[in-house]
C-alpha cells in the first residue's frame, strides 16, 4: 500500500477536475476578456460587466427569472410538502402505488414532453401564455422533487411526536405547524432550494410555455448565443456561477456547523450523566 499521491493518482485527479471545471474556468476567464471576439484574448478588462448593467434586455430577463424562481419554488414547496405528507400519512388503499407513482412521473418524464403537454393544455383552456403559464409549468415539474425530498424525511419521522402534541391538547392542524413542520423544516428548505435551482436553469419547459414579456435568462442567453456569443453572456454566466457557488458553500458550512454543534452537545450530555 502506498500512501500519498502517486503520479498516476495526480494525473487522474488533474484530468478529472479538468474535465469537470475547465469549461467553467475558460468561461470565467473570457468574461474578463477585453476583446470583442469571444475566442481571442485581448487583455484583462471588466468592461463586459459594466456593459451588462446597461443591457436592459438581459437585466429584464434576469429579473423575470428570479421572480419566477422565487414564486414557483414557493408554490411548489407548499404543494410538494402537502403531497409528501399525504402520501406518507394516508393508509393503504387500492391504487396507492399508482397514485404515488403518478406524483413522481414528472421526475423521469422528458422535459420536451412535459413542456409540450403543458403548452397543449394552456392552448386548450385558452390561457394566454405569459408569466402565469411559465410559473404554473415550473410548479408542476418542480413540486415532485420537493415531494421526494420531504417524503424521505417524513418516513423516518416519529409519529409519536405528533401524538404527544395532540395528547397535550394541540389540535391536528396546529400540531402540523408547531411540531411537524419545524422538525422537517431542513428537508422543506432543501426542497425549496432544489425547486428554485431547477426553475432558474430550466430552458426547455420555459420555451414551450412562455409568452410575450416573460423571457427568462436561460432563454435570452440561448437565443443570443445563436446569433454568436458575446462576451457579455460570459459575464452573466460568471455572475450566475458565482452566486450558485456562494450559495452551495454557505449551505454546506451551515449544515456542517449544525452537525458539529449537535455532536458536541451529545458528547457533553453523555459525559455529564
Amino acid at each position, binding site marked *: 500500500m502506498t500512501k500519498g499521491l502517486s503520479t498516476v493518482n495526480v494525473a487522474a485527479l488533474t484530468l478529472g477536475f479538468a474535465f469537470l471545471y475547465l469549461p467553467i474556468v475558460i468561461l470565467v476567464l473570457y468574461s474578463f476578456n477585453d476583446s470583442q471576439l469571444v475566442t481571442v484574448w485581448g487583455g484583462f478588462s471588466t468592461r463586459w460587466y459594466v456593459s451588462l448593467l446597461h443591457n436592459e434586455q438581459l437585466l429584464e430577463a434576469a429579473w423575470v427569472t428570479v421572480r419566477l424562481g422565487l414564486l414557483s419554488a414557493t408554490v411548489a414547496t407548499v404543494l410538494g410538502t402537502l403531497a409528501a405528507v399525504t402520501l406518507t400519512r394516508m393508509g393503504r388503499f387500492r391504487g396507492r402505488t399508482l397514485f404515488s407513482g403518478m406524483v413522481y412521473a414528472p421526475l423521469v418524464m422528458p422535459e420536451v414532453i412535459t413542456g409540450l403537454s403543458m403548452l397543449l393544455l394552456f392552448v386548450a383552456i385558452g390561457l394566454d401564455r405569459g408569466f402565469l403559464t411559465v410559473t404554473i409549468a415550473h410548479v408542476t415539474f418542480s413540486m415532485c422533487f420537493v415531494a421526494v425530498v420531504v417524503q424521505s424525511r417524513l418516513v423516518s419521522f*416519529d409519529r*409519536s*411526536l405528533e*401524538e*404527544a*402534541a*395532540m*395528547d*397535550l*391538547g*394541540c*389540535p*391536528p392542524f396546529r400540531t402540523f405547524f408547531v*411540531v411537524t413542520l*419545524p*422538525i422537517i423544516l431542513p428537508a422543506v428548505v432543501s426542497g425549496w432550494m432544489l425547486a428554485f435551482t431547477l426553475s432558474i436553469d430550466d430552458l426547455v419547459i420555459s420555451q414551450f410555455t412562455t409568452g410575450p414579456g416573460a423571457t427568462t435568462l436561460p432563454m435570452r442567453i440561448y437565443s443570443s448565443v445563436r446569433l454568436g456569443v458575446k462576451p457579455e453572456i460570459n459575464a452573466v454566466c460568471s455572475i450566475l456561477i458565482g452566486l450558485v457557488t456562494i450559495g452551495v458553500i454557505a449551505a454546506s458550512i451551515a449544515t456542517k456547523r449544525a452537525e458539529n454543534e*449537535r455532536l458536541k*452537545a*451529545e458528547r*457533553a*450530555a*453523555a459525559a*455529564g*450523566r
Partner: protein
Amino acid sequence: MALKPAQKALGPIRRSFAPWLDPSAVPLIRFENVTKRFGDFVAVDDISLDIHQREFFALLGPSGCGKTTLMRMLAGFEEPTSGRVTLGGKDLAGMPPYRRPVNMMFQSYALFPHMSVEQNVAFGLKQDGLPKTEIAERVTEMLKLVKLESFASRKPHQLSGGQRQRVALARAVAKRPKVLLLDEPLGALDKKLREETQFELMDLQMELGLTFLIVTHDQEEAMTVADRIAVMNHGKLVQVATPGDIYEQPNSRYVADFIGDINILEAKVAGAGPAGLSLAVKDPAAPITVAAPEARPADGAEVAFAIRPEKMRIAIEPPPADAVNVLKGEVWDIAYFGDWTKFLVKLEGSDTIMRVSRANATRTESAPIAWDDKVHVWFAPDAGVLLTA
C-alpha cells in the same frame, strides 16, 4: 441524581387503599365490553374493566396482547370497534385526544427535539391558554419535582436517557390530568436506574394524587409499582388482582407461569385427603395432599398443582416425621444469586425438574448441597395452588 421526595407516612394510606373492594365506590375509568379489531386481527377482545381514582393500575402482558391498544383507546388515538370507554361517567366516544383530560408518557418519550426542556414542559399548558406567569410557575414547579431545574434551557439531545425520561414525565403531569398513562415508561433505562425510578413513580403518584395507568411487559415492574395488575393475553383479561394475589393466587396456568418462577405438576383429583384433597401426580406417579380450594373439583378431575420454588424446603437428610408431601430427587443444577440459591432437582423415577429456592440466611454452611446430591424436597399442603384453567 435520584429524585427523593421528603419521606412521608404513606404506609397507612397505602395499606387501607382498596376501593375495588368497596361495592359502592364509583370507578373513574370504565371499559365496558370494549373490542378493537384491526382488519381480521382482534387486538382487544370484549374487555370490561374498572379503574378507580388514585389507583396505580398496571396492564401486564407479552407484546401483542392488546395492552397498548387498550391504553390508546383511553388516550383517544384509537376508537373502540364496539363497547364503551367512560371517564368520570362521561362517554369518551368521538372525543379527540386533544380534548381528553388524560395525558400520556410515551415509550420513546416523544420529546419535541426543537424545543428546550422548559418549552417541552410548557407545551401542554400553552395549549390551554394559561397566562404566561402561571405557565412559568408551573414549569418551575414541575422541573423541581423531577430535579431538573438546572437543565431548563437544554435541548432533549443534550440530556441522558434518565433525564429525558424525567422531562417526559414532567411534561405529562404538568397539566394535572385526571389520568396519567405510562406506556412502557422505564423500558429504555438500565436496571438500577429503572428500580430507582419505579419507587420515584410511586411516590410521585401518591404526592400528586393522580390516577396512573401503566402498560408494561415487565412483571417485576408491575408488581413493584401497581396497586392492581391486569394480566392480559391475546386481547383478553386473564386476571385482575393485587400483586400479592396475582403471585400467590394465580387463577390459571398462564398467570402462574407468566409471573415469577413456578413448578407446575399435572395431576388428577384422587379424593379426600388428610389435609383436604388428595392428588395423584402423573409424573412422577406420586400422591400428594393439598388444601382443598373453595370450589372443590370433582374426583377424577384433571388439575394442575402449582408451587413456587421458595415455598418448598430442600435438605439432604430426611425431613421431620410430620412432613406430608416429600419427594426424593437428585440435584441437577444450582444457581447461586447471592441472596437466594436456586436448586434444580430431578425427581426420582421421572424427568420432571423441580425448582426449589432457599434463602442464604447464613454466610457459611457446614454441609452445603452440591451437584448430584440425593436430596429430599417437601412442602406444606397449603404451600401451592390448585389450577383448573
